[in-house]
């Protein structure tokens, strides 16, 4: 029987489940909605319309010479409504119910969240994916279904073969399940290359 995935983002500051605060969650239209990891600005903020490239550039995060920099905001473009929706709880703070991967049935193996250079899913060489060393990826992700991540959590640096097991290592999903994750991007101090990169984040799952 076919199993499918829906992705919901928590558009509130309330750290609670989709079941408890359904009106705070927005289902992504996976065919066209986008995420922006950004510092934000008056134009790149919750409630604004789709930003231009120039507006996104103005809201880009600056690399620090002295310390790692966490990109402070994750904002989703709700394309059909032409509105930006901030995922307020995303980041390295101790927030648990941020992004929900809702599987509507069982899987044959444990689903994973992966990061690749592009949709071919066969290389991870972008700067943000560790520039060839996947353990140096800037993308931190953690499953928070069973517990909060803790303050200043590190999680799994996802890139290529460094993947996030979405059932916390417990194996395949035996029935429908809501899986929660938190995610952020942290740029190493004094990194020598500034760039706009668009890695592909992919959920891989199986069913029979």
């Amino acid at each position, binding site marked *: 029987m076919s199993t499918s995935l829906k*992705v919901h983002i928590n558009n509130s500051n309330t750290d609670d489940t989709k079941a408890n605060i359904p009106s705070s969650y927005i289902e992504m239209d996976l065919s066209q909605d986008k*995420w922006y990891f950004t510092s934000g600005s008056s134009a790149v903020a919750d409630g604004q319309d789709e930003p231009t490239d120039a507006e996104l550039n103005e809201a880009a995060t600056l690399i620090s010479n002295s310390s790692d920099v966490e990109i402070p905001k994750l904002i989703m473009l709700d394309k059909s409504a032409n509105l930006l929706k901030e995922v307020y709880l995303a980041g390295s703070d101790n927030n648990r119910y941020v992004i929900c991967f809702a599987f509507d049935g069982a899987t044959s193996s444990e689903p994973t969240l992966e990061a690749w250079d592009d949709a*071919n899913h066969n290389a991870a060489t972008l700067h943000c994916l560790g520039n060839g060393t996947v353990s140096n990826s800037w993308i931190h992700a953690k499953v928070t279904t069973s517990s909060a991540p803790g303050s200043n959590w590190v999680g799994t640096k996802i890139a290529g073969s460094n993947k996030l097991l979405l059932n916390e290592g417990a194996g395949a999903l035996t029935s429908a399940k809501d899986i929660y994750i938190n995610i952020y991007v942290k740029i190493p101090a004094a990194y020598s290359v500034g760039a706009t990169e*668009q890695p*592909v*984040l992919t959920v891989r799952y*199986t069913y029979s």
Partner: protein
Amino acid sequence: MIYIIYQDNTTYKGGKSYSDLGWSKAPNKPIKQVYLILPDGNFLVMQGCKKYNCFVEVTQNVYGAGPRVPIIENVYLMGIKEGTNAVNSYRVSLMQYKDSKYKIGDITRREYPIGKEFRGQPTIGWKGEVDESSPNNS
């Protein structure tokens, strides 16, 4: 897409597409042969195993460029022969990515330790014996 002949000579026919294999609905009892229909209409036949598994692998891009629909990349037919601790895995490619060495319909046979049969992880849904859990747990 699958056809099973059981040792008691009963049969089971699965769904009509790779998105609906029908494997999970198949009766779990000793199996004589499993047929998987290939993209070109031919069959991949597996026999002589004590347990079998069959499933599809899906990727769903959630961020970045590229297709943003669920894509069935591969279908797998696996078996464990009596007296062995290895999983025989046949992977049939259903998607051809740029720069990939695999074309649609290519079959890749590999052997894995039980419990690491899918990208280093165990799978569930095994049939052929009463216990349907992972071969690791049987």
